[in-house]
């Protein structure tokens, strides 16, 4: 019942892009190349892990497919933020990182961003590396380690997933600001410009991060109710914990 509802919601929001990916041509060539160089090893690790895990577990492929579709849709879904009067989008990489690990999540984000840059005028090919690094790599790593850290401290599944989604979103925008500030600053000092860009993102991304946290917690809890065995296989939780919770 919840899934058709969620999919309907996602489809209703799919409209021309008002988003945060860095557009084509914004970054100077040396910076664009540098971000490519930083992002590609993570994507390569993701490919390796997909091959390894799909051989090990049959439920991995459908889960990866589901996450790829979800990340693709929600990372081009403009959400209006009434308090800011602007639109932006969640990333979905926190959710994917919790369920599939940060490398596979980076790969999924890289594919989603490539399609968006090619066919949806959303982001750009020259800025693909920078967008993959901020949304795919840093978003995934922030979400993954927040979740693992909170779980290790004994935080229940839903709040841990919520904060992982929140951190993934905010970390993505922090790194986007760093990429933008370093690329466009010229002779201007870096930190004051970074501060200005970050502050400009805050009114939109603060509430959107909370929305992303809620979406992440919702997805993880949904899987926990329907297929707790998958969460055990993917190392999200222990078999003992599933049994103890009934």
């Amino acid at each position, binding site marked *: 019942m919840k899934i058709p509802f969620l999919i309907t919601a996602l489809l209703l929001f799919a409209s021309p892009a008002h988003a945060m990916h860095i557009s084509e041509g914004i970054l100077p060539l040396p910076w664009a190349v540098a971000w490519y160089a930083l992002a590609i090893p993570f994507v390569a690790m993701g490919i390796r892990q997909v091959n390894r895990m799909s051989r090990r577990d049959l439920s991995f492929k459908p889960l990866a497919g589901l996450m790829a579709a979800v990340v693709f849709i929600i990372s081009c879904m403009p959400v209006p933020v009434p308090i800011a009067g602007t639109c932006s989008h969640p990333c979905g990489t926190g959710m994917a990182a919790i369920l599939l690990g940060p490398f596979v999540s980076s790969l999924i984000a890289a594919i989603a961003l490539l399609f968006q840059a*090619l066919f949806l005028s959303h982001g750009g090919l020259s800025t693909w590396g920078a967008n993959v690094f901020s949304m795919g790599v840093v978003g995934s790593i922030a979400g993954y380690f927040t979740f693992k850290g909170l779980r290790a401290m004994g935080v229940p599944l839903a709040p841990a997933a919520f904060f992982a989604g929140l951190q993934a979103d905010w970390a993505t925008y922090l790194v986007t600001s760093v990429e933008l500030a370093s690329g466009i600053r010229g002779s201007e000092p870096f930190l004051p410009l970074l501060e200005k860009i970050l502050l400009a993102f805050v009114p939109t991304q603060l509430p959107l991060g909370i929305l992303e946290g809620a979406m992440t917690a919702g997805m993880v809890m949904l899987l926990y109710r329907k297929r707790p065995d998958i969460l055990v296989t993917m190392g999200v939780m222990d078999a003992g914990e599933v049994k103890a919770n009934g």
Partner: protein
Amino acid sequence: MDRETRKGQRAQGTRKIAKTLVYSFFLSVLTLCPLPFAFCHDAVCAETWPGVDESVVEKFAREHGRESREPLINTDQGDLLLFAFLLAGTAGGFAAGYFWRMLLEGKTKAQGSGKEKKK
């Protein structure tokens, strides 16, 4: 009524409340977010609800002498972008539904084989 039954009933009640909260959250997102669009003209909205790519990324880039270039395949022409997004949303929605079904079918199959083994 024994303690276990009461515990079970309480857990069921909590689950119901959580379900209602999730539904009301998605309903409020669905209804409230597009609400401002319903009261304004398209042309006005285009200026009033810019994406952060325009209001932050491109604005700062322009101030520092960097302009965005036309994408390699420019679908941002008339209704073409709307078509591309609708197609992407439909394909993505279909794929999400398809893989979700596969995941649930996996569970049914696993349960089915478990029952057969028991017999």
